[in-house]
Protein backbone atom coordinates (compact mmCIF):
# COMPACT_ATOMS: atom_id res chain seq x y z
CA UNK A 1 0.00 0.00 0.00
CA UNK A 2 1.37 3.42 -0.97
CA UNK A 3 1.44 5.69 2.08
CA UNK A 4 -0.10 9.15 1.94
CA UNK A 5 2.68 11.75 2.07
CA UNK A 6 2.09 15.42 2.83
CA UNK A 7 4.97 17.89 3.04
CA UNK A 8 7.33 14.92 3.33
CA UNK A 9 5.49 13.42 6.32
CA UNK A 10 4.04 9.91 5.94
CA UNK A 11 0.47 9.45 7.16
CA UNK A 12 -0.70 5.96 8.06
CA UNK A 13 -3.88 4.68 6.48
CA UNK A 14 -5.20 4.16 9.97
CA UNK A 15 -7.78 5.54 12.34
CA UNK A 16 -8.17 6.53 15.99
CA UNK A 17 -10.74 4.38 17.75
CA UNK A 18 -12.67 6.29 20.41
CA UNK A 19 -15.26 5.46 23.01
CA UNK A 20 -18.44 7.05 24.34
CA UNK A 21 -17.93 8.80 27.68
CA UNK A 22 -19.90 10.95 30.07
CA UNK A 23 -18.65 14.52 30.19
CA UNK A 24 -19.26 17.76 32.02
CA UNK A 25 -17.92 21.30 32.06
CA UNK A 26 -17.49 23.83 34.84
CA UNK A 27 -16.04 27.31 35.16
CA UNK A 28 -13.76 28.11 38.07
CA UNK A 29 -13.15 31.77 38.86
CA UNK A 30 -10.75 33.39 41.26
CA UNK A 31 -9.53 36.78 42.47
CA UNK A 32 -7.09 36.80 39.55
CA UNK A 33 -6.14 34.57 36.62
CA UNK A 34 -3.30 32.93 38.55
CA UNK A 35 -5.54 31.69 41.35
CA UNK A 36 -8.39 30.68 39.07
CA UNK A 37 -5.87 28.61 37.14
CA UNK A 38 -4.31 27.21 40.32
CA UNK A 39 -7.67 25.78 41.41
CA UNK A 40 -8.24 24.34 37.93
CA UNK A 41 -4.76 22.81 37.72
CA UNK A 42 -5.16 21.25 41.16
CA UNK A 43 -8.56 19.74 40.45
CA UNK A 44 -7.44 18.32 37.10
CA UNK A 45 -4.28 16.80 38.56
CA UNK A 46 -3.98 13.00 38.58
CA UNK A 47 -6.71 12.75 35.96
CA UNK A 48 -4.85 11.38 32.94
CA UNK A 49 -6.67 8.12 32.41
CA UNK A 50 -9.92 6.59 33.67
CA UNK A 51 -8.03 3.33 34.27
CA UNK A 52 -6.11 4.59 37.26
CA UNK A 53 -7.59 7.99 38.08
CA UNK A 54 -11.36 7.44 37.85
CA UNK A 55 -11.75 10.27 35.39
CA UNK A 56 -9.94 12.26 32.74
CA UNK A 57 -9.90 16.00 33.25
CA UNK A 58 -8.19 19.05 31.90
CA UNK A 59 -8.41 22.76 31.22
CA UNK A 60 -10.40 23.66 28.12
CA UNK A 61 -9.49 27.35 28.03
CA UNK A 62 -9.09 30.46 30.12
CA UNK A 63 -11.95 32.95 30.28
CA UNK A 64 -11.66 36.71 30.63
CA UNK A 65 -13.35 38.43 33.56
CA UNK A 66 -15.94 39.94 31.21
CA UNK A 67 -17.29 36.52 30.25
CA UNK A 68 -17.57 34.78 33.64
CA UNK A 69 -20.74 34.76 35.77
CA UNK A 70 -19.17 36.72 38.65
CA UNK A 71 -17.01 39.08 36.62
CA UNK A 72 -13.70 37.63 37.76
CA UNK A 73 -11.07 35.82 35.66
CA UNK A 74 -11.89 32.17 35.11
CA UNK A 75 -10.91 28.83 33.64
CA UNK A 76 -13.14 26.26 31.95
CA UNK A 77 -12.52 22.70 33.06
CA UNK A 78 -13.82 19.53 31.37
CA UNK A 79 -14.18 16.19 33.17
CA UNK A 80 -14.88 12.81 31.59
CA UNK A 81 -15.67 9.39 33.03
CA UNK A 82 -17.06 6.07 31.85
CA UNK A 83 -20.33 6.30 33.82
CA UNK A 84 -22.57 9.08 35.14
CA UNK A 85 -22.13 7.83 38.72
CA UNK A 86 -18.34 7.87 38.56
CA UNK A 87 -18.42 11.30 36.97
CA UNK A 88 -20.66 12.58 39.77
CA UNK A 89 -18.35 11.16 42.46
CA UNK A 90 -15.21 12.49 40.79
CA UNK A 91 -16.74 15.93 40.22
CA UNK A 92 -17.82 16.42 43.82
CA UNK A 93 -14.58 14.97 45.25
CA UNK A 94 -12.42 17.13 43.06
CA UNK A 95 -14.43 20.36 43.52
CA UNK A 96 -14.67 19.64 47.25
CA UNK A 97 -10.99 18.93 47.77
CA UNK A 98 -9.40 21.24 45.20
CA UNK A 99 -11.73 24.16 44.37
CA UNK A 100 -13.53 24.71 47.67
CA UNK A 101 -10.10 24.74 49.32
CA UNK A 102 -8.46 27.12 46.84
CA UNK A 103 -8.40 30.74 48.12
CA UNK A 104 -10.92 33.11 46.57
CA UNK A 105 -12.41 30.53 44.21
CA UNK A 106 -15.97 30.20 42.93
CA UNK A 107 -17.42 27.44 40.78
CA UNK A 108 -20.14 27.50 38.11
CA UNK A 109 -21.79 24.98 35.81
CA UNK A 110 -20.92 25.53 32.16
CA UNK A 111 -22.81 22.94 30.11
CA UNK A 112 -26.40 23.24 28.91
CA UNK A 113 -28.17 19.91 29.30
CA UNK A 114 -31.32 18.33 30.66
CA UNK A 115 -29.22 15.79 32.56
CA UNK A 116 -27.67 17.36 35.66
CA UNK A 117 -24.79 16.62 38.00
CA UNK A 118 -24.63 18.04 41.50
CA UNK A 119 -21.88 20.44 42.50
CA UNK A 120 -23.06 22.93 45.12
CA UNK A 121 -26.02 20.70 45.98
CA UNK A 122 -23.49 18.28 47.50
CA UNK A 123 -20.78 20.70 48.66
CA UNK A 124 -23.25 22.92 50.54
CA UNK A 125 -23.24 20.60 53.56
CA UNK A 126 -19.73 21.83 54.32
CA UNK A 127 -21.53 24.99 55.48
CA UNK A 128 -22.83 23.17 58.57
CA UNK A 129 -26.16 24.95 58.44
CA UNK A 130 -24.74 28.39 57.55
CA UNK A 131 -24.93 27.74 53.80
CA UNK A 132 -27.20 30.09 51.88
CA UNK A 133 -29.25 29.18 48.81
CA UNK A 134 -29.72 31.81 46.10
CA UNK A 135 -31.89 31.48 43.02
CA UNK A 136 -31.83 33.85 40.06
CA UNK A 137 -34.38 32.79 37.47
CA UNK A 138 -33.50 29.23 36.53
CA UNK A 139 -30.02 29.36 38.07
CA UNK A 140 -29.40 28.13 41.61
CA UNK A 141 -26.32 28.91 43.68
CA UNK A 142 -24.99 28.02 47.11
CA UNK A 143 -22.95 30.34 49.31
CA UNK A 144 -20.83 28.44 51.80
CA UNK A 145 -19.03 30.44 54.51
CA UNK A 146 -15.28 29.71 54.52
CA UNK A 147 -12.28 31.27 56.21
CA UNK A 148 -11.58 33.83 53.45
CA UNK A 149 -15.21 34.82 52.94
CA UNK A 150 -17.63 32.69 50.97
CA UNK A 151 -17.36 29.84 48.49
CA UNK A 152 -19.92 30.52 45.78
CA UNK A 153 -20.90 27.36 43.90
CA UNK A 154 -23.65 26.69 41.37
CA UNK A 155 -26.01 23.93 42.53
CA UNK A 156 -25.67 21.78 39.40
CA UNK A 157 -24.01 21.57 36.02
CA UNK A 158 -24.96 19.78 32.82
CA UNK A 159 -24.01 16.20 31.93
CA UNK A 160 -23.55 15.05 28.35
CA UNK A 161 -23.79 11.42 27.32
CA UNK A 162 -22.41 12.25 23.88
CA UNK A 163 -18.83 12.84 25.01
CA UNK A 164 -16.04 11.02 23.18
CA UNK A 165 -12.81 9.80 24.75
CA UNK A 166 -9.69 8.33 23.26
CA UNK A 167 -9.18 10.28 20.06
CA UNK A 168 -5.43 10.13 19.44
CA UNK A 169 -2.44 10.80 17.25
CA UNK A 170 0.85 8.84 17.25
CA UNK A 171 3.67 11.19 16.32
CA UNK A 172 6.80 9.45 15.09
CA UNK A 173 10.11 11.23 14.53
CA UNK A 174 13.77 10.53 14.00
CA UNK A 175 14.92 11.79 17.37
CA UNK A 176 13.25 12.75 20.67
CA UNK A 177 14.08 16.39 19.93
CA UNK A 178 12.30 16.58 16.57
CA UNK A 179 9.41 14.41 17.79
CA UNK A 180 8.94 16.71 20.77
CA UNK A 181 8.90 19.73 18.51
CA UNK A 182 6.16 18.25 16.30
CA UNK A 183 4.11 17.04 19.25
CA UNK A 184 4.33 20.33 21.09
CA UNK A 185 3.25 22.17 17.95
CA UNK A 186 0.27 19.81 17.69
CA UNK A 187 -0.64 20.28 21.36
CA UNK A 188 -0.51 24.07 20.96
CA UNK A 189 -2.84 23.89 17.96
CA UNK A 190 -5.23 21.47 19.67
CA UNK A 191 -5.43 23.58 22.81
CA UNK A 192 -7.03 26.29 20.69
CA UNK A 193 -9.98 23.99 19.95
CA UNK A 194 -12.98 24.42 22.27
CA UNK A 195 -14.74 21.55 24.07
CA UNK A 196 -11.70 19.24 24.12
CA UNK A 197 -8.94 18.43 26.58
CA UNK A 198 -5.66 16.55 26.30
CA UNK A 199 -5.61 14.74 29.66
CA UNK A 200 -1.98 13.58 29.77
CA UNK A 201 0.94 15.64 31.15
CA UNK A 202 1.19 18.76 29.01
CA UNK A 203 -1.09 16.98 26.55
CA UNK A 204 1.48 14.27 25.73
CA UNK A 205 1.76 10.57 26.67
CA UNK A 206 4.97 8.66 26.03
CA UNK A 207 3.87 5.31 27.43
CA UNK A 208 1.20 4.18 25.01
CA UNK A 209 -0.24 0.81 25.97
CA UNK A 210 -1.56 -2.32 24.32
CA UNK A 211 -4.35 -4.48 25.72
CA UNK A 212 -3.11 -7.43 27.84
CA UNK A 213 0.22 -8.50 29.28
CA UNK A 214 2.32 -11.59 29.91
CA UNK A 215 1.60 -10.97 33.60
CA UNK A 216 -1.84 -12.03 34.84
CA UNK A 217 -2.32 -9.00 37.07
CA UNK A 218 -1.80 -6.49 34.27
CA UNK A 219 -4.70 -5.64 31.94
CA UNK A 220 -2.54 -3.38 29.81
CA UNK A 221 1.17 -3.14 29.15
CA UNK A 222 3.70 -1.24 27.07
CA UNK A 223 2.95 -0.96 23.37
CA UNK A 224 6.09 -2.85 22.28
CA UNK A 225 5.26 -2.49 18.59
CA UNK A 226 5.92 1.25 18.96
CA UNK A 227 8.97 1.07 21.29
CA UNK A 228 12.02 2.21 19.32
CA UNK A 229 14.50 0.29 21.49
CA UNK A 230 12.67 -2.96 20.66
CA UNK A 231 12.56 -2.15 16.94
CA UNK A 232 14.63 -5.16 15.91
CA UNK A 233 13.44 -7.57 18.59
CA UNK A 234 9.64 -7.57 18.24
CA UNK A 235 7.00 -7.41 15.51
CA UNK A 236 7.52 -3.68 15.26
CA UNK A 237 5.31 -1.04 13.67
CA UNK A 238 8.23 1.34 13.30
CA UNK A 239 10.33 2.09 10.25
CA UNK A 240 14.09 2.34 10.40
CA UNK A 241 14.09 6.14 10.41
CA UNK A 242 11.96 6.34 13.60
CA UNK A 243 13.70 6.78 16.95
CA UNK A 244 10.92 8.22 19.11
CA UNK A 245 7.11 8.02 19.34
CA UNK A 246 4.82 10.32 21.33
CA UNK A 247 1.05 10.16 21.58
CA UNK A 248 -1.63 12.80 22.08
CA UNK A 249 -4.94 11.63 23.53
CA UNK A 250 -8.05 13.76 23.09
CA UNK A 251 -11.33 13.77 25.01
CA UNK A 252 -14.15 15.97 23.77
CA UNK A 253 -17.70 16.90 24.71
CA UNK A 254 -18.79 15.68 21.26
CA UNK A 255 -17.47 13.81 18.23
CA UNK A 256 -17.08 16.94 16.11
CA UNK A 257 -14.83 18.63 18.67
CA UNK A 258 -12.48 15.62 18.78
CA UNK A 259 -12.30 15.52 14.98
CA UNK A 260 -11.61 19.24 14.89
CA UNK A 261 -8.80 18.90 17.42
CA UNK A 262 -7.22 15.99 15.53
CA UNK A 263 -7.43 17.96 12.30
CA UNK A 264 -5.76 20.98 13.93
CA UNK A 265 -3.00 18.81 15.43
CA UNK A 266 -2.36 17.01 12.18
CA UNK A 267 -2.11 20.30 10.29
CA UNK A 268 0.49 21.63 12.76
CA UNK A 269 2.59 18.46 12.47
CA UNK A 270 2.49 18.41 8.69
CA UNK A 271 3.35 22.10 8.47
CA UNK A 272 6.60 21.48 10.36
CA UNK A 273 7.80 18.83 7.88
CA UNK A 274 10.07 15.79 8.49
CA UNK A 275 13.41 17.61 9.01
CA UNK A 276 12.31 19.66 12.03
CA UNK A 277 9.43 17.48 13.18
CA UNK A 278 7.78 14.13 12.64
CA UNK A 279 8.51 11.76 9.76
CA UNK A 280 5.31 9.80 10.21
CA UNK A 281 1.89 10.14 11.88
CA UNK A 282 -0.30 7.25 12.95
CA UNK A 283 -3.29 6.60 15.18
CA UNK A 284 -4.11 3.95 17.76
CA UNK A 285 -7.00 1.53 17.44
CA UNK A 286 -8.11 -1.95 18.48
CA UNK A 287 -9.14 -3.15 15.04
CA UNK A 288 -12.33 -1.10 15.15
CA UNK A 289 -14.36 -3.62 17.10
CA UNK A 290 -14.29 -1.97 20.53
CA UNK A 291 -15.05 1.71 20.00
CA UNK A 292 -17.91 3.10 17.90
CA UNK A 293 -16.09 6.30 16.88
CA UNK A 294 -13.48 5.95 14.11
CA UNK A 295 -11.42 9.01 13.17
CA UNK A 296 -9.61 8.16 9.93
CA UNK A 297 -6.44 10.18 9.44
CA UNK A 298 -7.01 10.47 5.69
CA UNK A 299 -10.32 12.25 6.35
CA UNK A 300 -8.66 14.76 8.68
CA UNK A 301 -5.88 15.96 6.39
CA UNK A 302 -5.69 19.68 5.83
Amino acid at each position, binding site marked *: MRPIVRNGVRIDESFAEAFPMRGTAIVITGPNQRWAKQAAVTMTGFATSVIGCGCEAGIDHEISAKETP*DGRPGVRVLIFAMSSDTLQTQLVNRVGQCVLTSPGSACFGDLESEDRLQIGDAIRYFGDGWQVSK*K*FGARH*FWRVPVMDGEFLCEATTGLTKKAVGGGNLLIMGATPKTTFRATEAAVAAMNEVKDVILPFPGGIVRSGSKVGSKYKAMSASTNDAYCPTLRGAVATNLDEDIGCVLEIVIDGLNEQAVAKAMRAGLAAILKLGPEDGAVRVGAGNYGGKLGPFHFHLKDLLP
Partner: protein
Amino acid sequence: MKPLVLALEQEPDQRLDLSPLSPHRLDGKSAKEIAEIEVQTTREKVTVGDLFRIRPGDAQTIVFEGGSTRLDNVGLGLKGGEIIVEGDVGKCVGRSMSGGNLVVAGDAGPYAGSALSGGRLEIGGNAGDFLGGPLEGELEGVTGGLLIVRGDAGARAGDRLRRGTLVIEGSAGDYPGSRMIAGTLVVLGATGVLPGYLMRRGTIALANPPELAPTFLDCGAHELAFASLSSRLLKPESRGAAKLFSSLLHRFAGDSAALGKGEILFPA
Protein backbone atom coordinates in the same frame (compact mmCIF):
# COMPACT_ATOMS: atom_id res chain seq x y z
CA MET B 1 -49.02 39.59 15.39
CA LYS B 2 -50.93 42.58 16.67
CA PRO B 3 -51.69 42.55 20.40
CA LEU B 4 -55.17 42.56 21.83
CA VAL B 5 -55.85 46.13 22.93
CA LEU B 6 -58.40 47.10 25.59
CA ALA B 7 -58.78 50.88 25.68
CA LEU B 8 -60.44 52.18 28.86
CA GLU B 9 -63.19 54.63 27.83
CA GLN B 10 -64.18 56.07 31.20
CA GLU B 11 -63.30 55.84 34.90
CA PRO B 12 -65.25 52.82 36.23
CA ASP B 13 -67.85 53.63 38.91
CA GLN B 14 -67.00 50.56 40.96
CA ARG B 15 -63.92 48.40 41.62
CA LEU B 16 -63.39 45.84 38.85
CA ASP B 17 -62.05 42.31 39.00
CA LEU B 18 -59.99 41.96 35.81
CA SER B 19 -58.65 38.50 36.61
CA PRO B 20 -60.44 36.92 33.58
CA LEU B 21 -58.38 39.10 31.21
CA SER B 22 -55.20 37.02 31.04
CA PRO B 23 -53.74 35.49 27.87
CA HIS B 24 -54.49 31.90 28.88
CA ARG B 25 -58.10 32.74 29.63
CA LEU B 26 -58.74 34.82 26.49
CA ASP B 27 -56.96 32.54 24.03
CA GLY B 28 -59.27 31.75 21.10
CA LYS B 29 -62.08 34.05 22.27
CA SER B 30 -63.64 36.44 19.76
CA ALA B 31 -63.95 40.17 20.46
CA LYS B 32 -67.66 39.64 21.06
CA GLU B 33 -67.03 36.91 23.62
CA ILE B 34 -64.44 39.07 25.37
CA ALA B 35 -66.89 42.01 25.44
CA GLU B 36 -69.38 39.85 27.30
CA ILE B 37 -67.06 38.90 30.17
CA GLU B 38 -68.38 40.26 33.47
CA VAL B 39 -65.87 42.11 35.64
CA GLN B 40 -68.07 43.78 38.29
CA THR B 41 -67.50 43.40 42.03
CA THR B 42 -70.90 44.77 43.14
CA ARG B 43 -74.47 43.91 42.22
CA GLU B 44 -74.25 46.35 39.26
CA LYS B 45 -73.31 44.18 36.29
CA VAL B 46 -70.41 45.51 34.21
CA THR B 47 -68.90 43.77 31.19
CA VAL B 48 -65.59 44.33 29.44
CA GLY B 49 -67.47 45.79 26.49
CA ASP B 50 -69.16 48.40 28.73
CA LEU B 51 -65.85 49.92 29.75
CA PHE B 52 -63.26 49.10 27.11
CA ARG B 53 -63.03 49.63 23.40
CA ILE B 54 -61.68 46.32 22.10
CA ARG B 55 -59.22 46.16 19.22
CA PRO B 56 -58.90 42.44 18.48
CA GLY B 57 -55.48 40.83 18.23
CA ASP B 58 -53.43 37.96 19.52
CA ALA B 59 -54.28 37.56 23.20
CA GLN B 60 -50.73 36.42 23.97
CA THR B 61 -50.07 40.13 24.40
CA ILE B 62 -52.77 42.24 26.03
CA VAL B 63 -52.40 46.00 26.15
CA PHE B 64 -54.57 48.10 28.45
CA GLU B 65 -54.71 51.66 27.14
CA GLY B 66 -55.38 53.90 30.11
CA GLY B 67 -55.59 52.74 33.69
CA SER B 68 -57.39 53.32 36.93
CA THR B 69 -56.77 52.54 40.58
CA ARG B 70 -60.06 50.65 40.42
CA LEU B 71 -58.66 47.96 38.10
CA ASP B 72 -58.01 45.09 40.53
CA ASN B 73 -56.47 41.65 39.91
CA VAL B 74 -54.87 42.58 36.59
CA GLY B 75 -52.83 39.58 35.39
CA LEU B 76 -53.93 37.41 38.30
CA GLY B 77 -52.52 33.92 37.82
CA LEU B 78 -50.68 34.93 34.64
CA LYS B 79 -48.91 31.85 33.25
CA GLY B 80 -47.31 33.12 30.07
CA GLY B 81 -47.53 35.81 27.44
CA GLU B 82 -47.54 39.49 28.24
CA ILE B 83 -49.79 42.14 29.73
CA ILE B 84 -48.96 45.83 29.43
CA VAL B 85 -50.94 48.47 31.31
CA GLU B 86 -50.39 52.02 30.12
CA GLY B 87 -51.68 53.51 33.35
CA ASP B 88 -52.46 52.73 37.00
CA VAL B 89 -53.86 49.54 38.49
CA GLY B 90 -55.56 48.67 41.78
CA LYS B 91 -54.80 45.91 44.23
CA CYS B 92 -53.25 42.51 43.60
CA VAL B 93 -51.75 43.17 40.17
CA GLY B 94 -49.90 40.04 39.04
CA ARG B 95 -50.97 38.12 42.13
CA SER B 96 -50.05 34.42 41.96
CA MET B 97 -48.55 34.81 38.52
CA SER B 98 -46.22 31.97 37.58
CA GLY B 99 -44.81 33.09 34.24
CA GLY B 100 -44.91 35.70 31.50
CA ASN B 101 -44.24 39.40 31.66
CA LEU B 102 -46.50 42.02 33.24
CA VAL B 103 -45.64 45.70 32.95
CA VAL B 104 -47.58 48.50 34.64
CA ALA B 105 -46.53 51.94 33.49
CA GLY B 106 -48.30 53.77 36.31
CA ASP B 107 -48.86 53.10 40.01
CA ALA B 108 -50.04 49.86 41.59
CA GLY B 109 -52.16 49.37 44.71
CA PRO B 110 -51.47 47.08 47.67
CA TYR B 111 -50.44 43.44 47.29
CA ALA B 112 -48.81 43.98 43.89
CA GLY B 113 -47.11 40.73 42.85
CA SER B 114 -48.60 38.98 45.86
CA ALA B 115 -47.42 35.35 46.00
CA LEU B 116 -45.61 35.70 42.66
CA SER B 117 -44.00 32.37 41.81
CA GLY B 118 -42.44 33.01 38.40
CA GLY B 119 -42.18 35.43 35.50
CA ARG B 120 -41.49 39.12 35.65
CA LEU B 121 -43.58 41.98 37.05
CA GLU B 122 -42.47 45.55 36.52
CA ILE B 123 -44.21 48.57 38.00
CA GLY B 124 -43.11 51.84 36.44
CA GLY B 125 -44.61 54.04 39.16
CA ASN B 126 -45.17 53.42 42.86
CA ALA B 127 -46.51 50.32 44.59
CA GLY B 128 -48.76 50.15 47.66
CA ASP B 129 -48.27 48.26 50.89
CA PHE B 130 -47.41 44.54 51.10
CA LEU B 131 -45.56 44.43 47.79
CA GLY B 132 -45.34 40.71 46.93
CA GLY B 133 -46.80 39.81 50.29
CA PRO B 134 -49.23 37.03 51.13
CA LEU B 135 -52.89 37.74 51.78
CA GLU B 136 -54.21 37.21 55.29
CA GLY B 137 -53.79 33.60 56.33
CA GLU B 138 -51.32 32.67 53.62
CA LEU B 139 -47.90 31.45 54.71
CA GLU B 140 -45.70 32.61 51.83
CA GLY B 141 -45.30 35.79 49.81
CA VAL B 142 -43.20 35.73 46.64
CA THR B 143 -41.80 32.27 45.91
CA GLY B 144 -40.01 32.96 42.61
CA GLY B 145 -39.63 35.30 39.67
CA LEU B 146 -38.60 38.93 39.51
CA LEU B 147 -40.54 41.96 40.77
CA ILE B 148 -39.27 45.46 39.98
CA VAL B 149 -40.73 48.75 41.20
CA ARG B 150 -39.19 51.80 39.53
CA GLY B 151 -40.81 54.16 42.04
CA ASP B 152 -41.51 53.80 45.76
CA ALA B 153 -43.12 50.92 47.65
CA GLY B 154 -45.35 51.06 50.71
CA ALA B 155 -44.91 49.36 54.07
CA ARG B 156 -43.99 45.69 54.55
CA ALA B 157 -42.58 45.20 51.03
CA GLY B 158 -41.48 41.59 50.54
CA ASP B 159 -43.42 40.30 53.52
CA ARG B 160 -42.82 36.56 53.92
CA LEU B 161 -40.66 36.49 50.79
CA ARG B 162 -39.58 32.90 50.19
CA ARG B 163 -37.62 32.88 46.93
CA GLY B 164 -37.09 35.19 43.95
CA THR B 165 -35.91 38.77 43.71
CA LEU B 166 -37.64 42.07 44.53
CA VAL B 167 -36.05 45.35 43.46
CA ILE B 168 -37.43 48.69 44.63
CA GLU B 169 -35.58 51.47 42.84
CA GLY B 170 -37.26 54.21 44.90
CA SER B 171 -37.79 54.17 48.63
CA ALA B 172 -39.50 51.55 50.77
CA GLY B 173 -41.91 52.11 53.65
CA ASP B 174 -41.59 50.69 57.15
CA TYR B 175 -40.66 47.04 57.83
CA PRO B 176 -39.37 46.07 54.38
CA GLY B 177 -38.64 42.35 54.24
CA SER B 178 -40.70 41.62 57.33
CA ARG B 179 -40.89 37.93 58.22
CA MET B 180 -38.75 37.02 55.20
CA ILE B 181 -38.27 33.27 54.83
CA ALA B 182 -35.52 33.60 52.17
CA GLY B 183 -35.02 35.33 48.81
CA THR B 184 -33.58 38.70 47.89
CA LEU B 185 -34.97 42.21 48.45
CA VAL B 186 -33.16 45.28 47.12
CA VAL B 187 -34.05 48.90 48.01
CA LEU B 188 -32.15 51.69 46.27
CA GLY B 189 -33.87 54.69 47.86
CA ALA B 190 -34.58 55.44 51.49
CA THR B 191 -35.97 52.77 53.84
CA GLY B 192 -38.49 53.07 56.67
CA VAL B 193 -37.98 51.68 60.14
CA LEU B 194 -36.90 48.15 61.06
CA PRO B 195 -35.93 46.48 57.80
CA GLY B 196 -35.91 42.68 57.99
CA TYR B 197 -38.17 42.59 61.03
CA LEU B 198 -38.31 38.92 62.14
CA MET B 199 -36.65 37.68 58.96
CA ARG B 200 -35.43 34.07 59.09
CA ARG B 201 -33.17 33.77 56.06
CA GLY B 202 -32.59 35.72 52.87
CA THR B 203 -30.82 38.86 51.76
CA ILE B 204 -31.91 42.49 52.04
CA ALA B 205 -29.60 44.88 50.20
CA LEU B 206 -30.14 48.54 51.09
CA ALA B 207 -28.41 51.49 49.44
CA ASN B 208 -29.41 53.79 52.33
CA PRO B 209 -30.09 51.81 55.49
CA PRO B 210 -31.81 53.36 58.47
CA GLU B 211 -30.69 52.43 61.98
CA LEU B 212 -31.03 48.66 62.21
CA ALA B 213 -32.71 46.77 65.04
CA PRO B 214 -30.27 45.63 67.74
CA THR B 215 -31.18 42.05 66.81
CA PHE B 216 -29.06 42.45 63.65
CA LEU B 217 -25.45 41.53 64.35
CA ASP B 218 -22.49 43.29 62.74
CA CYS B 219 -20.42 40.84 60.65
CA GLY B 220 -18.16 43.43 59.02
CA ALA B 221 -17.52 44.54 55.43
CA HIS B 222 -16.72 41.91 52.82
CA GLU B 223 -16.08 41.41 49.14
CA LEU B 224 -18.45 38.62 48.11
CA ALA B 225 -18.38 36.68 44.83
CA PHE B 226 -22.13 36.31 45.31
CA ALA B 227 -22.50 40.12 45.20
CA SER B 228 -20.61 40.49 41.93
CA LEU B 229 -22.65 37.61 40.50
CA SER B 230 -25.86 39.38 41.58
CA SER B 231 -24.56 42.58 40.09
CA ARG B 232 -24.06 40.99 36.70
CA LEU B 233 -27.33 39.08 36.72
CA LEU B 234 -29.37 42.16 37.77
CA LYS B 235 -27.69 44.59 35.39
CA PRO B 236 -30.13 44.09 32.48
CA GLU B 237 -33.07 44.78 34.81
CA SER B 238 -31.77 47.49 37.12
CA ARG B 239 -28.52 49.38 36.74
CA GLY B 240 -28.96 50.79 40.23
CA ALA B 241 -29.21 47.35 41.80
CA ALA B 242 -26.16 46.25 39.79
CA LYS B 243 -24.22 49.23 41.14
CA LEU B 244 -25.25 48.52 44.73
CA PHE B 245 -24.02 44.91 44.49
CA SER B 246 -20.75 45.98 42.91
CA SER B 247 -19.74 47.92 46.04
CA LEU B 248 -17.99 46.61 49.14
CA LEU B 249 -20.84 45.44 51.36
CA HIS B 250 -21.27 45.59 55.10
CA ARG B 251 -23.08 42.52 56.42
CA PHE B 252 -25.44 42.40 59.38
CA ALA B 253 -26.80 38.94 60.26
CA GLY B 254 -30.33 38.64 61.56
CA ASP B 255 -33.02 38.85 62.63
CA SER B 256 -31.68 37.09 65.71
CA ALA B 257 -35.11 37.58 67.29
CA ALA B 258 -36.14 34.91 64.76
CA LEU B 259 -33.92 32.26 63.11
CA GLY B 260 -31.16 34.80 62.47
CA LYS B 261 -29.76 33.28 59.26
CA GLY B 262 -30.71 36.24 57.06
CA GLU B 263 -28.61 39.27 56.26
CA ILE B 264 -28.87 42.98 55.58
CA LEU B 265 -26.17 44.28 53.24
CA PHE B 266 -25.34 47.91 52.56
CA PRO B 267 -22.37 49.77 51.07
CA ALA B 268 -19.49 49.93 53.53
